[in-house]
């Protein structure tokens, strides 16, 4: 086919082709410049769908009960998230009122197109998977979940089987499993190998890199999306760096545009080729803005990533 097209090419077309080639040569610079103010996106789960590389978590931070003052404050945080191009929001029935608070915020703000709603089911399963998902949908006030994960592998066989059925029926879009703190990696590995899952959520940050050994390469090989939880190690990582007023190395700005510790820590995570997105949690609009800016280009090269880990190790 290509051969025949080649033969049909006219003079006008060949001029066009030269133009296109010139454009392609200059494109990387142009697209990088254009990219500067925009959130990076990554394809996930072997599809051509894309997710912004910075999502958000809700553990502790969004569990505010029915306090009107705090409900409005968290709505502002969600607004900042979407204003900066946010997509994936992760919650769980284990996070107290966080799903209700998300429902409140979405009702105030409207549900943006970019929302990628990620929930979880947890123990005890006992035939309750569908019920749990239905209840959470009501609490979020959404029509569907883009992703439902089995929280910390609780009753995972039963939950996963039910979630797969729900996915096949079109009730939910993707299924996944979660762990954190480096727990149960060998079981996670087995599930990633033997089950047909779209996402795995695990702890990956600059000081907790166990997942690099087996799970991240396996995710790439199997086309499984990876959500990095505890990107700030629960907050201690960034809060300690800020409190100590630790100097941000100049080369980090030159090599990958890091101007804040949020840039440094999050860019490290999302520049790993296997990571789809990181999900920092925050109660503060200013922190949300800082976190979202970390999803902008440029990203660190493999060499720069090595320098980043060495630098943190040396502090």
């Amino acid at each position, binding site marked *: 086919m290509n051969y025949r097209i080649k033969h049909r090419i006219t003079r006008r077309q060949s001029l066009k082709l030269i133009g296109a080639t010139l454009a392609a040569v200059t494109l990387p610079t142009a697209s990088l410049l254009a990219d500067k103010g925009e959130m990076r996106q990554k394809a996930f789960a072997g599809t051509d769908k894309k997710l912004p590389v910075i999502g958000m978590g809700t553990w502790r931070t969004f569990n505010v009960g029915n306090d009107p003052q705090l409900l409005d404050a968290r709505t502002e945080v969600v607004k900042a998230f979407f204003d900066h191009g946010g997509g994936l929001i992760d919650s769980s029935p*284990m996070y*107290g009122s966080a799903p209700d608070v998300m429902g409140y915020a979405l009702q105030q703000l409207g549900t943006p197109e970019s929302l990628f709603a990620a929930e979880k089911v947890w123990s005890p399963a006992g035939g309750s998977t569908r019920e749990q998902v239905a209840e959470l949908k009501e609490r979020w006030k959404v029509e569907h979940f883009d992703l439902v994960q089995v929280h910390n592998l609780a009753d995972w066989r039963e939950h996963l089987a039910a979630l797969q059925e729900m996915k096949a029926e079109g009730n939910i879009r993707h299924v996944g499993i979660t762990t954190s*703190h480096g727990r149960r990696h060998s079981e996670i590995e087995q599930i990633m190998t033997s089950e047909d899952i779209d996402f795995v959520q695990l702890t990956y940050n600059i000081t907790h890199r166990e997942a690099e050994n087996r799970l991240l390469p396996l995710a790439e090989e199997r086309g499984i999306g990876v959500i990095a939880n505890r990107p700030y190690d629960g907050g201690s990582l960034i809060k300690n760096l800020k409190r100590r007023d630790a100097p941000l190395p100049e080369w980090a700005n030159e090599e990958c545009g890091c101007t804040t510790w949020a840039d440094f820590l999050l860019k490290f995570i999302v520049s790993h080729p296997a990571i789809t997105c990181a999900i920092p949690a925050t109660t503060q609009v200013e922190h949300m803005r800082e976190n979202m800016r970390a999803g902008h280009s440029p990203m660190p090269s493999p060499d720069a990533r090595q320098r980043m880990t060495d630098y943190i190790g040396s502090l």
Partner: protein
Amino acid sequence: MNEWTSYQLQDFIPFTAEVYFRLLERMGETFWPLHLLTLALGAATLALALKHRTRLACLLPAPLWAFVAVAFFIQRYAALNWAGGYAGDTFIAQAVLLVVIALTGWGMDKTPSRTSPPVVMGIAIALFGLILMPLMAPLSGGSWYQTEVFGIHADPTAVTTLGLALIMLRGFALWIAAIIPALWLVVSGLTLQALDSTGSVVLFAVLAITLVGLVWKSIKPKR
């Protein structure tokens, strides 16, 4: 990685300090001036206990335990922590236990001596729960609404009840009546510790003194 060693206290506390202290403050905002009534009931209970009107002294705090169970745990705290409903149930169980003790007279120390060390400890703990605990928030720069009060908030209710139990009860009944308040103080102390609040030290100190009082009263032969 050993799964259990990877857990920290923070992993079990699903809210931030801001949210927890706002919850305590909202209890104050919502129920003021009920505080005056609950404090008066507390003071009356202490007076009755010291005057050996033990049955009535056991009965009076029971509705307050039920109130904290419903208004604090079931209606509010449970929205933040799935375990809150169970905490509410145990507070209701304590209310029932106090009623049962009041009705049956089980384990009552009918003539507590005001000079016996465990009773002195009990009086001190009860006064601390009734008077000093409410003053802690305003004295440390907080608003009056952050004041934690016996019969409205869980901590002073548990502390004061432990003090009262040391005065009024003895033997097995004393230990049984102390279990739920003491367990709550452990949970609350650990919560405050995870939230980096110095309040935890106060609760653990009360617990330690109570334990000494319980053991003392149990081994000391009654005169």
